[in-house]
């Protein structure tokens, strides 16, 4: 009975605190010019991705031998490739693929990495030691290498790239969340929740993890950028999206053969990747500062 009243009184308080916290964070984010630039970039690509069929001037896959390797013009805004396909339209549709890969692979990393890190940090002991060794093993494959290993086994294609980059980001989250959980679990409200008879599951997911959200959000923003870069790298190596798919890395790789005569095929897709990654990195930097009470 006493626990019920205790939670009854704390819930509304927590809610007002949360909204003011969110307002505070947003206020700091909006005041940060670099972060606003990042938001604008992300917003731009989101609009392009959502309205791709309306923005594209041509079909992204329609070939035409008459218009091969044309330079940018009024008809073909960014020129055409070796099969006469409109580069602008291909890149417009490509924004969907890159955003999807970034979001879904990050989601995979969160869904698997966060619980692993939380359980490892919360229970500690042998479980923690064993989990951490598994994470050590995954981290032993530097950068894009783990994604390459996974793609080698799974095979090429956009879907496998998402899985590969997702798996490659799991250790990042596991490490990050374990650290935050170690710090949070010593707080008195966790002891209070335990004393109130809550199970481990609800303590972890209702009381500890919500207080580890800030680093997870910041990391996810950076992780989306990293995943987009990795996926484009895999596409460039021929291990990612396959031929007619208008994935930016694959378009770039394809255009390499014509770099001396038609460098627009490599320049523009690369710029698109750069801007998208820059957008997420800028917002990540801004969020980190906004969520950190010290730098406010």
């Amino acid at each position: 009975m006493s626990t019920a009243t205790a939670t009854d009184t704390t819930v509304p308080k927590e809610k007002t605190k949360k909204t003011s916290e969110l307002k505070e964070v947003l206020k700091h984010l909006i005041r940060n010019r670099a972060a606003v630039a990042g938001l604008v970039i992300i917003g731009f690509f989101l609009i392009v991705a959502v309205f791709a069929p309306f923005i594209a001037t041509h079909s992204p896959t329609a070939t035409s031998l008459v218009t091969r390797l044309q330079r940018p013009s009024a008809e073909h805004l960014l020129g055409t490739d070796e099969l006469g396909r409109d580069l602008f339209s291909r890149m417009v549709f490509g924004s969907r693929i890159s955003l999807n890969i970034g979001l879904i692979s990050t989601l995979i990393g969160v869904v698997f990495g966060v619980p692993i890190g939380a359980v490892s940090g919360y229970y500690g002991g042998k479980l923690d030691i064993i989990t951490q060794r598994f994470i050590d093993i995954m981290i032993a494959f530097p950068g894009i290498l783990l994604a390459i290993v996974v793609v080698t086994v799974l095979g090429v294609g956009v879907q496998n790239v998402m899985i590969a980059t997702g798996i490659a980001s799991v250790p990042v989250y596991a490490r990050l969340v374990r650290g935050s959980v170690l710090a949070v679990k010593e707080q008195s409200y966790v002891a209070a929740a335990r004393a109130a008879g809550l199970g481990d599951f609800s303590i972890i997911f209702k009381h500890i993890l919500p207080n580890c959200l800030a680093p997870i959000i910041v990391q996810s923003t950076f992780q989306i950028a990293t995943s987009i870069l990795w996926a484009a790298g895999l596409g460039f190596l021929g291990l990612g999206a396959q031929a007619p798919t208008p994935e930016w890395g694959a378009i770039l790789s394809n255009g390499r053969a014509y770099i001396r005569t038609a460098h627009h095929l490599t320049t523009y897709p690369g710029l698109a990747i750069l801007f998208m990654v820059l957008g997420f990195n800028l917002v990540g930097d801004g969020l980190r500062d906004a969520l950190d009470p010290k730098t406010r």
Partner: protein
Amino acid sequence: MYQYIARRLLLTVPVVFGVAVIVFSIVRFLPGDPARAIAGVQATPEFIQQVRIRYALDEPLHVQFGLYLRGLARGDLGQSTFTRRPVTTEIAERFPRTLLLASISLAFATVLGVGAGIVSATRRNSLFDNASMFIALVGVAAPVFWLALMLQLLFAVQLRLLPATGMGSWRHLVLPAVTLGSASAALMARITRSSMLEVLRLDFITTARAKGLTERVVIYKHALKNALIPVVTVLGLQFGILLGGAVLTETVFAWPGVGRLLVDAILRRDYPVVQGTVMLLALLFVLINLVVDIVYAFLDPRIHYQGGSEE
């Protein structure tokens, strides 16, 4: 201290073992017959049978893994299905080139990154600071293979100053090293700057200034020594990441190192070479991390050597 090093060494053993399990599994998880996968696409049935016997593929998995480990310990990584040469030979030929490329890249990244970071921190919010931090942001966001192609386009195709691809003189190294090192340089510039700014706020810097020391001595003798601790950690990790990142750079510049070997091997389904290369890169990374942790322990007296939970 020695207890810490011993513990750290001990922790490396299961990691190396786990890496071996993963690399061993690459071929076993492939759909279809592993013997056919190892033998290669154009293998005759006789050769496939030979492979099956050589790798004991009819034996239970743990026996196969034992044989694999024994081979590893002896430096036997199998045979390339493409060139039919031992994988060890293939790697030994190319690895020094990757090492050279990664080392030069790291040197370039360190000089440029740390230098820019120090100047940025000491002249906070100046034009130099803003410009270099902007370039650093772009440097981290630019896809390395795109940067490679743009540098090729500018310096090799248009200005004709440097060779676009291949290996030979030091001039062949310039573009790949700059490309590979750029992201690391950007990262190091940002880390050096923020670490330096943090140190410059501390009391002992105020004391040093109050003693009447010149700004030069304060910055280069007092602040820098402390500010570089996080940079050293990143330096080590970056070296490992550069070795892995060489995969993309080597492909663009046709630099015949292990990165390129790995990509070619994957595209040719030359699995013994894939396994060997991945094994090498991962082990190197583990080794580098080990060295970094030990160096860090010597550098930073605040680190605690006992207890179970330090990273």
